[in-house]
């Protein structure tokens, strides 16, 4: 059995660690690229959203490298994602690829539901081993997030653009290569040391933007056109509403661990969204409120084209924006997205925030309350 899974940002590091800890053969699909997207788009329904297409590309590329079993997340609720695993299984079957699909549905009642599914993959391994493997994978997720948070801080302040990204790439490799907790700790330490050595200008007071929206597009740089790197280059400090480890805790551990998660975001969604609207629609609104309260300069919502929950959120964002005086911008991506147009809009949005920040700093706000609206 050779197991593969779809990409979602740096999630491959945790999944690979988990499976390898249990001595299972793993095929990590090649990082998403134009080829992945072309393959995926070719074999997907046109009206499905971008995540399905990139997943399909991942599976096909993994199959080419010998994978025969896919681990895929399922889901329930109004978002179509819950149905994607089934659709993908049928498409792969029609293509004549003989691959088994194990679908991890989010546990409805108890975490044991997830364990049972893992059992299907792990066979006769002891429970203790499995728990140890999950714990190790969890540590890796935390490690990636820890480094990424520092990267977000360094990017807008570095004197030579691009240095932080170089280190980040290497650091992911170190974390990925760590075989035990000790090596993992060393990898994080090494990454931190390298990051500290990057020359930065700490006197800068960068514009701060919070990123909210659909989880896949938020976490997968290929899908969001590397928005974080572009914004960093424009001198913006980026913060994401959810990190990988938080998502894992929320969705796979059922929020068992007491770390910041989407629960807080949901609490701030009322009175704008009072109930679940599918996907992360509620969290998008709640996180925007949170970012506004934390005095961020602006919020960018990312979503794949035709994403229902995020469309709901998008139509509510202008109200939040007006109430809190925080400018918002919506980036919708699909396989036709062009870099140039997106960059122009991002630049304009950052300019808007920068000028607003300068005007406020000059005390000009006394002349009248600044009004903001959505974009």
């Amino acid at each position: 059995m050779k197991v593969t899974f779809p990409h979602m940002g740096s999630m491959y590091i945790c999944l690979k660690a988990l499976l390898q800890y249990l001595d299972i053969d793993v095929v990590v699909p090649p990082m998403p690229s134009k080829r992945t997207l072309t393959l995926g788009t070719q074999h997907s329904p046109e009206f499905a959203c971008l995540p399905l297409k990139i997943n399909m590309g991942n599976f096909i590329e993994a199959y080419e490298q010998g994978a025969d079993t896919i681990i895929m997340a399922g889901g329930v609720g109004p978002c179509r994602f819950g149905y994607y695993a089934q659709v993908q299984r049928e498409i792969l079957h029609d293509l004549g690829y003989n691959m088994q699909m194990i679908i991890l549905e989010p546990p409805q009642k108890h975490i044991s539901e997830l364990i049972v599914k893992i059992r299907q993959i792990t066979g006769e391994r002891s429970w203790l081993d499995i728990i140890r493997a999950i714990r190790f994978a969890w540590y890796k997720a935390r490690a990636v997030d820890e480094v990424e948070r520092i990267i977000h801080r360094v990017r807008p302040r570095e004197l030579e653009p691009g240095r932080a990204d170089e280190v980040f790439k290497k650091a992911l490799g170190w974390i990925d290569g760590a075989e035990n907790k000790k090596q993992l700790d060393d990898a994080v330490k090494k990454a931190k040391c390298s990051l500290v050595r990057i020359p930065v200008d700490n006197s800068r007071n960068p514009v701060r933007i919070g990123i909210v929206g659909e989880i896949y597009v938020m976490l997968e740089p290929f899908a969001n056109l590397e928005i974080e790197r572009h914004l960093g280059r424009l001198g913006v400090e980026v913060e994401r509403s959810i990190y990988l480890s938080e998502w894992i805790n929320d969705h796979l551990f059922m929020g068992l661990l007491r770390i910041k998660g989407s629960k807080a975001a949901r609490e701030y969604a009322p009175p704008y969204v009072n109930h679940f609207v599918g996907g992360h629609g509620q969290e998008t609104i709640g996180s925007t409120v949170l970012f506004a309260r934390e005095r961020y300069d602006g919020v960018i919502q990312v979503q794949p084209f035709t994403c229902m929950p995020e469309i709901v959120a998008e139509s509510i964002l202008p109200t939040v924006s007006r109430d809190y005086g925080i400018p918002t911008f919506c980036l919708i991506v699909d396989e036709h997205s062009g870099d140039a147009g997106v960059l122009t809009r991002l630049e304009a949005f950052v300019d808007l925030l920068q000028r607003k920040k300068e005007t406020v700093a000059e005390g000009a706000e006394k002349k009248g309350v600044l009004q903001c609206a959505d974009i």
Partner: protein
Amino acid sequence: MRGYLGVDVGSVSTNIVLMDENENVMETLYIRTQGQPITAVQRGLEYIRDRVPAGMEIGGIGTTGSGRHLSGIIVGADSVKNEITAHAVAASKLVPGVQTVLEIGGQDSKIIILRNGVVTDFAMNTVCAAGTGSFLDQQAARLGIPIEDFGEIALKSGTPVRIAGRCSVFAESDMIHKQQMGHNLPDILAGLCEALVRNYLNNVGKGKEILEPVAFQGGVAANVGIKRAFEKALGFEITVPPHFNVMGAVGAAMLAREATRKTGRTRFKGFAITQEKFRAASFECGDCPNLCEVIEISGQDRILARWNDKCGKWSNAEVSGFRRKKIENLA
């Protein structure tokens, strides 16, 4: 005395303005880009060079428009800014107290909302170019009228016909249909103006609070038919500022002035660049399956800049001899 240059390289036109220290526009130039941005900038600057008054030195230069990065490298720009910011800056100077900017250019249209002189909101056409200058150009050519007369003829209309403006292809077939039904030319042109304005307000201007004073700029603002259609739809008068067709360049010059005020000196390479040979080439980087088509600008056997790579390997690279060798090996 110091002068400031603004260069706006757009899809259809390349505009250059010369501005004095007090932000008075002294010279403007509007030429067609014709798909050759480098040549257009060089020709334009050559024209401006001969018109710079004696005793004026260039204190700064700024670029904007879709070709801003390319032209910025070539001229040595002090500020390289997107067209939304440039248009907003120019409008707030030339139309005092402006709260809304409607801009329709060759292939894009945008709306900018300003409050207290600060941009608070903007939008750009995303999926459709119906209603921009190129489409009007094309229809004028099809009807056999010069684009300059388009607006005047439309004003003669008594009862504009209703034309589907959602999509330029359907708009065209609808126009042909109306012609064959026997409607006269002014009514059709006025109908087209109204359809385009409707499309603009429903798509680009959707959900925006359009408050007076409104500035209407960009090449299409020359069309009085469109201006009147806007006024009819909004219910109040709109202003077409002086230099409406080169507003992006005016804004770029202002931004250059601002940028050099901070640094104290300009990076402008001088008018000699009009004679220099620049070369834009591209190569496909084969280091990963993304196969990025990296663009490389060189002048006088020296690589000036590279961009268009996803990972930043080429755009971040220090343009040194070592790197150049690497490219040669790659080719």
